[in-house]
């Protein structure tokens, strides 16, 4: 309760600051509309018949991309984290792939996968694999060695070892990776929709209704929507983290 209150205070402070800065003319209102305007636009979004399918597409794609990234990255991270030679052999490829900017790859991926939602989902999943993968690998390295020895001495079969010891140990930090990935995949998703088109989505909406008409209020209303969805999912992940791995002191709050 108190936490929620503090968050609210923080948010209100931020909004007030923004409003004041715009009203004082530090930033021109045509470029950065004040929150009062943006929030009104934001409220109006939901009565816009075109926005709803856009939002559904983006959010759905987001879940798919994130789920894809997690299902690839967690097992791979556990594998690479525990098998040294595999990690060494794959690291050049991983390190060459990692810095590839999704945005520059758009045409290539469209060529392979088509211009539908597959492309943005693939790009978002690609970009969001890394935080989960890396945090998982690092978390594997940080498991107390005494604990690992104990499991070995108990001859826990590999699968059980994975589910009862490795996963609980790495879960907090891996989840932090997931939360990072959540925002990165959202960013890539929206950017792809925005920069390439060919599909529907909030990015496309913002492009059509905001940018192509020079309407920053619409752009920021879209941004607020994106941020809000992101925030809600982040909260969901956090509370899952608290519930399932409450024993750990670690596990983020941001």
């Amino acid at each position, binding site marked *: 309760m108190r936490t929620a209150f503090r968050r609210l205070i923080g948010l209100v402070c931020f909004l007030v600051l923004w409003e004041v800065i715009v009203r004082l003319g530090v930033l021109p209102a045509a470029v950065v509309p004040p929150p009062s305007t943006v929030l009104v636009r934001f409220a109006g979004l939901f009565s816009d018949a075109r926005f709803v399918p856009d939002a559904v597409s983006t959010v759905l794609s987001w879940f798919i991309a994130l789920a894809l990234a997690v299902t690839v990255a967690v097992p791979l991270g556990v594998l690479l984290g525990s098998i040294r030679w595999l990690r060494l052999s794959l690291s050049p490829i991983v390190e060459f792939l990692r810095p590839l900017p999704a945005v520059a790859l758009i045409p290539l991926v469209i060529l392979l996968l088509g211009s539908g939602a597959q492309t943005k989902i693939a790009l978002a999943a690609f970009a969001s694999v890394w935080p989960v993968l890396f945090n998982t690998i*690092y978390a594997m390295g940080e498991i107390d060695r005494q604990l690992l020895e104990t499991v070995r001495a108990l001859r826990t079969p590999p699968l059980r070892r994975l589910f009862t010891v490795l996963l609980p140990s790495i879960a907090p930090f891996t989840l932090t990776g997931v939360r990072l990935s959540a925002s990165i995949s959202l960013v890539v998703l929206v950017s792809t929709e925005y920069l390439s088109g060919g599909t529907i989505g909030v990015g496309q909406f913002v492009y059509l209704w905001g940018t192509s008409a020079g309407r920053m209020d619409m752009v920021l209303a879209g941004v607020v929507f994106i941020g809000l969805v992101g925030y809600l999912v982040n909260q969901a992940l956090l509370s899952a983290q608290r519930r399932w791995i409450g024993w750990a002191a670690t596990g983020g*709050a941001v």
Partner: protein
Amino acid sequence: MNGGRRWLDFARRWVVFVVFVGVWQLVAYSAANPYFPPPSGILSAAGHTWFSGPASHLYLSGAFTDDILPSLGRLLAGFAIAAVAGIPAGLALGRSARATDYVSPMFFFARAVPATLLVPVFLVAFGIGPRMEIVTVLWGAIWPILLNTIDGARAVDEVKTETARAFRISRSGWIFGVVLPTALPKVFAGLRLALSLAIILMVVSELMGGSTNGIGYQLINAQGNFQLPQMWAWIVLVSLLGYVANLVLSAVERRALGWHPGFQAEEV
């Protein structure tokens, strides 16, 4: 680590990579798609783009000084600021649940917002030029550092907290001697993620507009002019940059985490 082991590791590292490139060449060559030139084509385009300069410049073309160096500068500036701001902020927030409460909603909002959408805002607030590009890099690169550091800082073991308190460890001793070392492995995970994100955002920032040089600018220009082998050359350069940057960071990490039993085997 003895010599034999070293060689084995080296071989393991590169055999897979060489096989990867070989398969790529084969597939791309037989596909003959203009968007996917084979590595050999990319190589010749790269030679043409970067090594066509006069002998007095070691055959380097102007691309080095005009595009690659400025990009590197912006990349490093953005990354350095992200690290310098992110680590201390992460340590502070990790140890103070209350401060975290106040900022957490804004943090998620901020990190879910694509920099591409905020170009006009950045343009107005920071102007055309390096400042805006650095901010764009910072905008994306700070989050992994911040979040991972927060996580790391929270993970101080109860017994160690009590030990530090019982011995009345000074504030700086607590932060630099206990919290930071505890967080360090996670901080490094964050730094490595941030580094590749910084490279990506460096490219993105240059193609969002306002730039007149840089790797990303040339990349998108090559793409726009359908000089696809050149575009691939720039893409490969970005990869290479990421690889080298990561190598440097790993070396730093090996030193800083030398004590860590879990990271002992990482010498290569």
